[in-house]
């Protein structure tokens, strides 16, 4: 029983890490909170459905979705950044309000284009792993593996490439980075696109496990917030560790306690962390 909880929790944790990472990067570099982040996740899932629908094949649909969904969502992110966020000068409060507006717009446009019902997407491969006590979906394990690969990919991007270098520089100090010739405006756009793209990617991976529907973005958003706060705003390492902490403990607690109670406990846990260390586990001290 505990084994199942840990297994399920791990899969959740990987996906959560991927989603929260996007939010964390955006905050780390741009110092803003994107309330519509959950909608990017949802769009990934919805585009995945369309890809599956057009190709009428689960494998090609999956591949297509993996390739194009993050790109399309990335474009939407860049568009929002350019025409909305930049116009409010990345003011923290204004971006929150603006991204709430973007949330409503994306959600409702999806409702209009996709419909109110939840639609399933078939997994590209389907096999069942038989443990002595229960069966488990092979695809879920694949999701964990792929998420892990993506996380490594992002890490490589940040630590080993020029783009990553620029991003880290901009995070440290925007003005000095600009003085040094870093194209900070473009970096902002790239980071926002990357954040959205990661969320969309998570959506594509996750949608065969759960259906796509226009309201699915809210829950991941709230969870990402919890993860990012506990891990510490601005710390990538903190985000990932917190994601695992939350994912696995949520899995375990839900097995032994009622899920609603588990969620309440998770929130109160966050409060405790904040009392002890207001900037989160690994957060930098700001403001």
């Amino acid at each position: 029983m505990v084994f199942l909880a840990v297994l399920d929790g791990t899969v959740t944790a990987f996906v959560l890490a991927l989603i929260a990472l996007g939010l964390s990067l955006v905050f780390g570099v741009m110092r803003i909170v994107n309330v519509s982040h959950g909608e990017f996740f949802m769009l990934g899932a919805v585009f995945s459905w369309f890809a599956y629908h057009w190709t009428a094949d689960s494998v090609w649909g999956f591949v297509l979705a993996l390739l194009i969904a993050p790109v399309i969502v990335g474009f939407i992110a860049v568009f929002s950044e350019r025409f909305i966020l930049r116009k409010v000068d990345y003011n923290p409060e204004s971006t929150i309000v603006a991204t709430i507006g973007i949330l409503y717009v994306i959600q409702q446009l999806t409702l209009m284009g996709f419909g109110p019902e939840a639609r399933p997407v078939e997994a590209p491969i389907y096999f069942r792993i038989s443990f002595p006590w229960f069966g488990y979906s092979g695809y879920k394990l694949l999701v964990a593996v792929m998420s892990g690969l993506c996380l490594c990919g992002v890490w490589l991007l940040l630590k080993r490439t020029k783009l990553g270098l620029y991003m880290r520089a901009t995070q440290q100090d925007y003005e000095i980075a600009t003085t040094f010739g870093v194209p900070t405006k473009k970096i902002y756009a790239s980071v926002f696109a990357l954040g959205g793209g990661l969320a969309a990617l998570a959506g594509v991976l996750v949608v065969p496990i759960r259906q796509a529907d226009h309201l699915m973005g809210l829950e991941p958003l709230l969870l990402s917030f919890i993860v990012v706060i506990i891990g510490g705003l601005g710390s990538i390492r903190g985000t990932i560790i917190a994601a695992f902490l939350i994912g696995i403990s949520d899995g375990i607690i839900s097995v032994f306690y009622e899920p609603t109670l588990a969620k309440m406990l998770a929130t109160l846990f966050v409060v405790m962390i904040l009392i002890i260390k207001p900037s989160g586990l690994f957060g930098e001290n700001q403001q």
Partner: protein
Amino acid sequence: MMSNKEKGKVDQQSELHITRRSVIGAGAAIAGAGIIGSQLIDPVAKTAYAAGSDEPIRIGFQAHRTGIGALYGRWYERTTNAAAKYINSIGGIAGRPIEIITEDDGTDPKRGADVVEKLATKHKVDFVYGTLFSHVVMGSAPRAGELKIPYFVVSEGYHVASGALNRYVFQPCITDVRSQITAVSNWIFSNLGKNVALIFPDYAFGYDHRDYASAAAAKSGAKITAKIAIPPTASSFTRYFVKIPKNTDVIYHVMVGPGVLTFVREMGEHYGTRHPKLFGFIDSLEGVNINSPGLEFLDGSHFWEAMPRYADGYPTSGSNFYRDTVGVDNTGASKSDSKDVSAYSHMFGCWETLFAIKEAVEQSGYKSKKDYKTLIETFEGFTGFNEGIAHPQGSKVFSGKTHQCYGQQFVSQVKNGKFNVVHRTSIADGMYEPETDYTKKSL
């Protein structure tokens, strides 16, 4: 050859005849008759009552056009419009045309109250009708009571019959979950097994299932092996399946919402080929094609249906006429789009309720708001509705005290990619003693 007027009187008399008996007795009588067949009530209501003014009867339709109820709202709206069109084609209500005014309540209780207000005071409708989701009913019905306007619910919630609402609220043509569960429980225990695990959503609708199924089990000597409440936002269910004990014969599941398909798939992944029997409620799959990927695990399992989705499940002429008129094909999908599966076990409530309103208006001689009292008292005097075009789901027994009806229920099995009816309950199977008496309350 009887004139329409005489025919109308005869039908009316057969209704009056029913009023003499007790609720239980009437139910047994109707149930015993088997498929009542093509008794088409002639609804051409050219009666002597409401001498025609051309002023339409305005019915305010509180629709879940957006929000979590949007799927149902869509089908409710289609059914309502089809019913109104048909009623107008046969002469309207008491010779007056019916006019439907629709407002969206967003499946939100606070907007529900505002919508009731708007329909009543701005659009000045005669009646308000059409709500499904129970929290919206709870938020809106009190307002209807304050505004003193009759409010007809199409919800299948138990709140009307529980006495929690007011005398203006009726649920005349769709049975409530208590009745549904009571009716099918015995069949489950007798045919599927006596050790039952309950899986339900963690809110009122789920609790009703938990409570009434447990009560039914206690009465029949069956045992509830587990009661698993799943939060509405859950997106992964694997961790709940481990809580089901090994000695369970039947899993009774009532999951609703976007996670249903995941729920079924994960149940399949968890159990593999050796699994307990399954009994579900079609609420889980309203609007969803049974052949959707991931639902393979349901093959061979059983479902409660209020009205069989597939046409061969209950092929009476009234039911076929209704299906055709609302635009649904033999598989339960929209005729114009086979991917658009209907909410067939709920939407009939709209059709039938509009006809019930018609019958009440015509019998009571209602002309305007001053006549609400007479209308309500007439309604409370009804003891049932006969099957036919007006009531295609089946005959109903109506309790004036609880403002709620009882009706037949269906058990279907999933086989060969469709639902096949294997059992039809009698109306008496779902009856329970009234727990309230609205007739004693003031208006």
